[in-house]
């Protein structure tokens, strides 16, 4: 599902012919019915045909447009497979026989600032690039040029495609850039707190986000310190983030998708890097086992903040986390490859308000899997076969009780992507089996061991009706084992490009129905509940469902500057909300809620050669409704219909980020703002007398402590959140060794942002204070 298309070119292998598919009759404008018929026939009979490879070509010129001959142009497929050539007399260059994937194009010439461009290659495409070299003055350095035109062509409603270079533009502590750093700058995606490791996307709960690493789901992919995910930028080839409206190939979650494709290790030479930092230290190793064919990529990260933090910030950091990643990749032939991926993460943390009770939370993710990718030599098709195991366990320990949860999923996917000229068909079948073991309390359903299975199929059809009009329609059908009705989920997206594929404006709309059979339970009544328990939806319960409707505008508004605006509505039903006993920490019951989210996300982004800036703003309204016992924890209450803004909602969110490169120096800034989050205020305390017998014991009964909650659920607002992070890097190069030194500040003006607050005790836990940090990274290639 959404995994890397990592079949690459085996250097020196006989070339395949370009354009053969056109020769056998596929053509633009193929009707949908004929295309589908063709797909079915191809699936059934699977005859031999020729694969379609792509070409990246173009010209190198100076700023006045004069072609520059003899420029060294290198194409790197991010796994270390590198091809180079010199530009011709007319400045031209061309790289053919390219498999789908993400490539880096680097042009360098004496007297000019080197230029680097990223090209995302699909099947059967011709990518043309003009690389403009700027005369060197006093500054040297690599300049990144964004391919505006390609970006516009790839723009899709609610999809944010993130490339590795972008992940390094934000000031993440330590020289180990991370996916999390970028996610928090996408409007509509809200990191609930600096600590706790949870993201809310457009009003959904954190457990409604599907996070895939090479197709393998990670149940809790974010570390307890909110700067980091389990996915370091060093291992990323590409990330597609769908804030909503995603296609039929994705299922099992109702809010968003983060589909991470990892890169392969270098197949040409050993590469290694080590970074030491006060938050997180990391090591990366790439080993070409067989030149140009087999590679291994290993990544290890371990937190050190719990040891170094108290010394640099005079503050206890009772958090410990880390992640381990390994990937084996081999080209089995020119048209097939195999990869095996393993990832393991752990997090432990304690939250202890001054004078309050200590609560600890711990979780671990594991995922192991293998993927075989085969490109039939004579078909414009990619077939993938994957099997993987994902596991997650977590536990929570409070002063009065504990909870634990464990889930293991075994998954198998088979997918086919057919390229039919401008059209594309994705088809797949999948099966999964999940086992659960959770202990949340003595309430009915609070503890159980169970197994649920599901299987299904999906079909996504991308139809280029014309260069200006594109549709994507899909259907996902899933059957479940545990007496739950089968789910049929239609999805759709349309795009209108007034200027054609090379135009500057893209208008789009997307809609779909989404269902989620396994649910992650987080307590809505807590401001920040870091404990997540995964449970199945049972036969009598309805499966959580959401409907998305989104409209979008994407426009290139200036040189390397883009504007993106989206309006969305999301309707959610059957959301499971756990209610825990505050005294015993045990599950009391599960409430079923309905939710509605709507809002506007706007992002302006300038990605210049030396200056990068992005501003994002999200305005949203989120309301949940349901019959719940209200007020919470009050005795003698009956379910009452209440409507409220959930505690993971902020009405306003602003994100400003910038990166300036000047020679070997790079400066980065990130400022975030979020309006207050809802919580339930109280009127005060009293001693409650139970409604019991008609005797006069109540005359002298002391009663038990009780809280008079406000009549409006979640009517209070926490203080606003804002934080400034800064960093500066200096890069030193000597031969094959590169050293990067970084200094930075987290929460530069020491804002006391609230993490958790107990209204009953007044105990407050704050997020991270100002923390200076230093980091050193050594890259050897």
């Amino acid at each position, binding site marked *: 599902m959404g995994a890397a298309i990592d079949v690459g070119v085996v250097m020196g292998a006989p070339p395949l012919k370009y354009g053969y598919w056109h020769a056998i009759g596929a053509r633009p404008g193929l009707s949908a019915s004929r295309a589908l018929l063709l797909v079915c026939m191809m699936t059934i009979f699977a005859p031999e045909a020729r694969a379609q490879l792509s070409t990246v070509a173009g010209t190198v010129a100076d700023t006045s447009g004069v072609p520059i001959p003899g420029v060294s142009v290198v194409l790197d497929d991010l796994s270390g497979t590198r091809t180079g050539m010199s530009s011709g007399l007319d400045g031209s260059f061309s790289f053919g026989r390219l498999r789908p994937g993400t490539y880096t194009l680097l042009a360098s010439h004496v007297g000019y600032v080197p230029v680097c461009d990223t090209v995302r290659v699909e099947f059967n495409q011709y990518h043309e690039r003009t690389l403009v070299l700027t005369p060197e003055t006093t500054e040297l350095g690599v300049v990144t040029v964004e391919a505006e035109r390609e970006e516009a062509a790839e723009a899709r409603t609610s999809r944010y495609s993130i490339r590795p270079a972008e992940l390094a533009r934000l000031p993440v502590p330590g020289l180990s850039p991370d996916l999390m750093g970028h996610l928090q700058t996408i409007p509509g995606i809200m990191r609930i707190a600096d600590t706790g490791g949870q993201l809310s996307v457009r009003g959904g709960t954190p457990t409604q986000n599907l996070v895939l690493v090479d197709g393998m789901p990670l149940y809790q992919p974010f570390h307890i310190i909110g700067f980091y995910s389990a996915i370091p930028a060093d291992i990323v080839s590409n990330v597609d983030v769908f804030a909503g409206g995603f296609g039929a190939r994705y299922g099992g979650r109702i809010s968003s998708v983060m589909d991470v494709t990892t890169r392969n290790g270098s197949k040409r030479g050993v590469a290694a890097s080590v970074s030491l930092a006060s938050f997180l230290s990391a090591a990366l190793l790439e080993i070409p086992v067989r030149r140009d064919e087999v590679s291994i990529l290993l990544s290890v990260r371990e937190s050190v903040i719990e040891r170094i933090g108290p010394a640099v910030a005079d503050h206890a950091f009772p958090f410990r986390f880390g992640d381990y990643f390994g990937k084996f990749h081999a080209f089995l032939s020119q048209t097939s490859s195999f990869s095996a991926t393993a990832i393991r993460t752990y997090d432990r943390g304690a939250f202890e308000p001054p004078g309050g009770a200590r609560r600890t939370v711990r979780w671990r993710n594991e995922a192991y899997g293998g993927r075989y990718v085969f490109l039939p030599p004579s078909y414009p098709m990619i077939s993938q076969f994957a099997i993987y195991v994902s596991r997650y366990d977590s536990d929570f320990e409070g002063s009065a009780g504990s909870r634990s949860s464990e889930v293991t999923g075994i998954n198998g996917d088979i997918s086919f992507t057919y390229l039919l000229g401008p059209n594309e068909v994705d088809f797949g079948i999948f099966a999964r089996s999940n086992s659960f073991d959770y202990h949340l309390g003595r309430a009915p359903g609070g503890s159980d061991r169970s197994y649920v299975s599901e299987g299904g199929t999906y079909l996504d059809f991308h139809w280029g009706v014309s260069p200006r009009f594109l549709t994507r329609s899909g259907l996902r059908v899933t059957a479940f084992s545990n007496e739950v009705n089968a789910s049929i989920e239609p999805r759709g997206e349309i795009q209108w490009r007034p200027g054609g594929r090379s135009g500057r404006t893209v208008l789009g709309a997307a809609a779909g129905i989404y269902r989620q059979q396994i649910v992650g339970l987080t307590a809505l009544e807590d401001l920040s509940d870091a404990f997540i328990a995964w449970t199945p939806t049972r036969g009598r319960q309805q499966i959580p469902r959401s409907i998305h409707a989104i409209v979008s505008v994407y426009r290139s508004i200036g040189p390397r500057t883009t504007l993106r605006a989206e309006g969305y509505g999301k309707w959610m039903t059957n959301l499971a909300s756990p209610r825990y006993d505050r005294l015993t920490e045990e599950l009391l019951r599960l409430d079923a809620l309905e939710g509605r989210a709507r809002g506007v996300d706007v992002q302006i982004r300038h990605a210049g050669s030396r200056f990068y800036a992005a501003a994002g703003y999200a305005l949203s309204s989120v309301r949940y409704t349901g019959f719940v016992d209200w007020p919470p924890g009050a005795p003698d209450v009956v379910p009452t219909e209440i409507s409220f803004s959930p505690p993971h909602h902020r009405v306003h969110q602003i994100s400003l980020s910038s990166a300036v490169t000047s020679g070997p120096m790079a400066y980065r800034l990130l400022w975030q703002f979020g309006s207050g989050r809802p919580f339930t205020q109280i*009127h005060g305390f009293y001693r409650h007398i139970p409604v019991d017998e*008609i005797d006069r014991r109540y005359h002298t009964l002391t009663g038990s402590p009780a809280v008079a909650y406000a009549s409006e659920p979640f009517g209070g607002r926490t203080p606003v959140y804002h934080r400034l992070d800064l960093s500066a890097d200096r890069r030193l190069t000597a031969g094959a060794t590169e050293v990067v030194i970084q200094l930075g500040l987290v929460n530069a003006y020491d804002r006391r942002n609230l993490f958790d607050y107990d209204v009953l005790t007044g105990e407050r836990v704050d997020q991270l204070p100002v923390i200076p940090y230093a980091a050193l990274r050594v890259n050897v290639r």
Partner: protein
Amino acid sequence: MTGPLGRRRRWRSVVAAGCAAVLIVGGCENTVTTFVEDEMARPFFVYGYLDSGADTQFVRVAPIAPTLEASTTEQLDAQVRTTSLTSGDVVAWTDSLVILDDGSAGHLFYGLFRPEPGASYRLEVARSDGASTTATTRVPAHPEVRVDPVRTSGTVLIQDVTWDGISAPPFEALVRYHVSRYDETMPTLIRRSYLNSGHQERSSWTTSIQLSRDRDLVAQALGTAASDPPPALYRIEMLVSFGDDAWYRPDAVQVVNGTGFFGSVGRFSVAWALPDEVVSALELTNRQPQ
């Protein structure tokens, strides 16, 4: 303005604006407002009920406070009164300090009146600044009672009594036998609870009085031996206590601008005479008023 100088000035402006924004936002309020800021909201917790069987009514009153401190012996800033919504009668209640189970002090207000069955009352607990908590209750009205003829089940004598117009089983259900030994003239009261032996059907509650079994209970209580002359029966009656809806449905508790419980209880009784043949069959001596 272009050129390095202009660019530098522009950058300075941007940086200055950024710093100003940071300082402005950095000065934002950063405390959590735990309590609802409306000071007039929810001032009191109340607990009590009106009892149609008593001529003094009681209600516990406590302030809803920012902290859960032990109560003090100081006078509570609260005036309590009830108004009959049926007759308009107003009764002022009096505060009294009671020692609670844990040794702390509590405020128990009392009002001297007997509530009328079927009447509605509003309780108002007012603070001197005008903030008040109110609660209303309707005292259960007299239910219709049906005493069925005695029936036999084998050799056992049973009599059904049905109370109509109540939506839940009673809190108390007693059958009282006024009896004495044959050689005594002052009747003794023998009680038998029928609380758990009745059944609710829609808006009526019916219990089956086990006369034969109760006769044995009476004989045993009086210490009458089998060879002794039969005990005398003076009177048979049944007493029930019903609560209003607030006792059974928390959503029916009508405490406004406060929290707690305020309900009411109706106490009712019915007496009847057993026919001579039944008294004889029970091997009792009939001294019921004719």
